[in-house]
């Protein structure tokens, strides 16, 4: 099956998600096109991180459909019935989607290079030599060529997050998800991570970025989505939404963060 190039990279149709009786996503519908950078902003508890985790099926959705590159995530649809995918099938879907976490989640017992090499070797069956060459290349791309042999605990937060980005890129993803990648960083380290992300966006990567960095959203984002209380309140061109918000809730939020 060939996928037409106009298939959106991410398409969410009426996606809902509850934790117990608490509905954190309420019928979210949105699409991210190929090569687009979508920034998701909003107060904490608005459901933006949960939505991001639904995209690669780290969280199971309760209602609606979520497609990545035309493929239904987490389920197989046959007739009018949905069948849950086996872990191996779900993993196959995830391997093309890179994810960067707020707390880096680097493997603490592996060096930076080993972190980047691990998934290509184990999941894609790459040889050690190829994985190492590609790993060094990616570490150089995020500006850490000299830190390849360092363990995560020996790196600053900004360096760790850049290793995490290289680790995700090592799987040659078609989509990158960023879950508040700079929120756990000291202020002076935020810039180096945003620079790497900006470079990545310029190279044509499709990205969904949950962030509190309004400057990044305005400069790099092709679209911005403002979420609050589990719904998309407002979305559109970053300059429009950030400088001229239409909704009261967006205005209230932006007045606090800008």
């Amino acid at each position, binding site marked *: 099956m060939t996928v037409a190039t106009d298939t959106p990279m991410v398409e969410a149709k009426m996606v809902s998600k509850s934790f117990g009786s608490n509905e954190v996503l309420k019928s979210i519908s949105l699409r991210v096109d190929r090569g687009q950078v979508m920034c998701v902003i909003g107060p904490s508890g608005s459901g933006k991180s949960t939505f991001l985790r639904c995209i690669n099926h780290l969280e199971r959705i309760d209602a609606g459909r979520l497609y990545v590159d035309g493929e239904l995530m987490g389920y197989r649809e046959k007739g009018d019935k949905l069948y849950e995918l086996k872990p191996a099938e779900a993993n196959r879907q995830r391997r093309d989607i*890179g994810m960067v976490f707020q707390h880096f989640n680097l*493997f603490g017992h592996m060096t930076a290079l080993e972190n980047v090499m691990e998934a290509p070797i184990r999941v894609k069956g790459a040889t050690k030599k190829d994985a190492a060459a590609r790993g060094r290349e990616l570490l150089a791309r995020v500006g850490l060529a000299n830190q390849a042999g360092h*363990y*995560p*605990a*020996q790196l600053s937060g900004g360096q760790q997050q850049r290793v995490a980005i290289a680790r995700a890129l090592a799987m040659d993803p078609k989509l990158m998800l960023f879950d508040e990648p700079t929120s756990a960083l000291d202020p002076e380290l935020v810039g180096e991570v945003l620079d790497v992300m900006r470079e990545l966006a310029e190279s044509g990567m499709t990205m969904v970025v949950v962030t509190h960095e309004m400057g990044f959203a305005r400069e790099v984002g092709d679209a911005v989505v403002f979420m609050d209380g589990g719904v998309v309140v407002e979305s559109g061109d970053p300059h429009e939404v950030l400088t001229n918000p239409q909704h009261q809730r967006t205005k209230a939020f932006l007045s606090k963060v800008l």
Partner: protein
Amino acid sequence: MSDTQRPEGADAAASTPSVDTAAVHTERAETIRAVRLRHPWRNTVAVVLILLVLLFVLDAAQREAFQWDIVGKYIFDTRVTQAAFITLALTVLAMLFGIILGLILAVMRLSPNPVLKWIAWAFLWVFRGTPVYVQLVFWGLVTLIYKTVYVGIPFVHTWAEFTITWTPPLFMLAVIGLALNESAYMAEIVRAGLLSVDPGQEEACTALGMSWGQTMGRVVVPQAMRVIIPPTGNEVISMLKTTSLVVAIPYSMDLFGRTSDISATIFAPIPLLIVASIWYLFFTSVLMAGQYFVEKRFARGSDRSRPAVGGVVVGAEGVAGVGIDVGGKG
């Protein structure tokens, strides 16, 4: 007073910072040469204790009851060295099976399946809740408890009936008894280790498309080892000593059983207790040294509480760099 002085001091510091830093680099205050504080009681207590220990050692060396000549005669006796080997074999085998079963029990306790969880919990409840000595007596009587085995539907129909005539060797019963008891403790140690690994690690693996087996084998278990290894080392040392309880089965080829038997024939219990103690001490000392090196091996990498790790590595690189420079010049 101090209220008025403090802002003045702050002003002075704020207005002349450059002068202060310059002073630090050029001048140095005189090194303090004070009279050291004396600790007379500390020294007195130390001297008294040393004298007491010396007295005890001198007394022990001469005391008839210890019969040192018999200790010397039996320490390398073939029967004793064989028994020492059996104690070692019991320890190794019991720990091996104990760790394997403990690992299975720990995974069962963390499983989402409530039946597995409940069975593991019940196992731990029984084996941690009864003394190991009592358990070993039970294992010694196992052939009396299970004389016959029925195959069929309980209380309704029996298809076949087997009479068990085979008597398992006592050594095997000792290993089983020790291993099952140990597995209950190892299960808790392994469980604590697995739970100590940040759930974010597993999440990162999942996001990269790694399977559960890869996640456990490559990422979670290696990091759990740092928490699992130290108490496991203690368990090995403890197991070496617990093997002396196999007399409860009754199995008496181990170090303590064998030395007791010898002492019964030559009517000299005390020197043979010393022989056994010397061997136990030798083995535990070797194990303690081994534990130290294994712990060092698994502490590598992510220990946040010891930022010195980074300093050591940087320092080592620096030293290596200097070495190469010097060599080049030479």
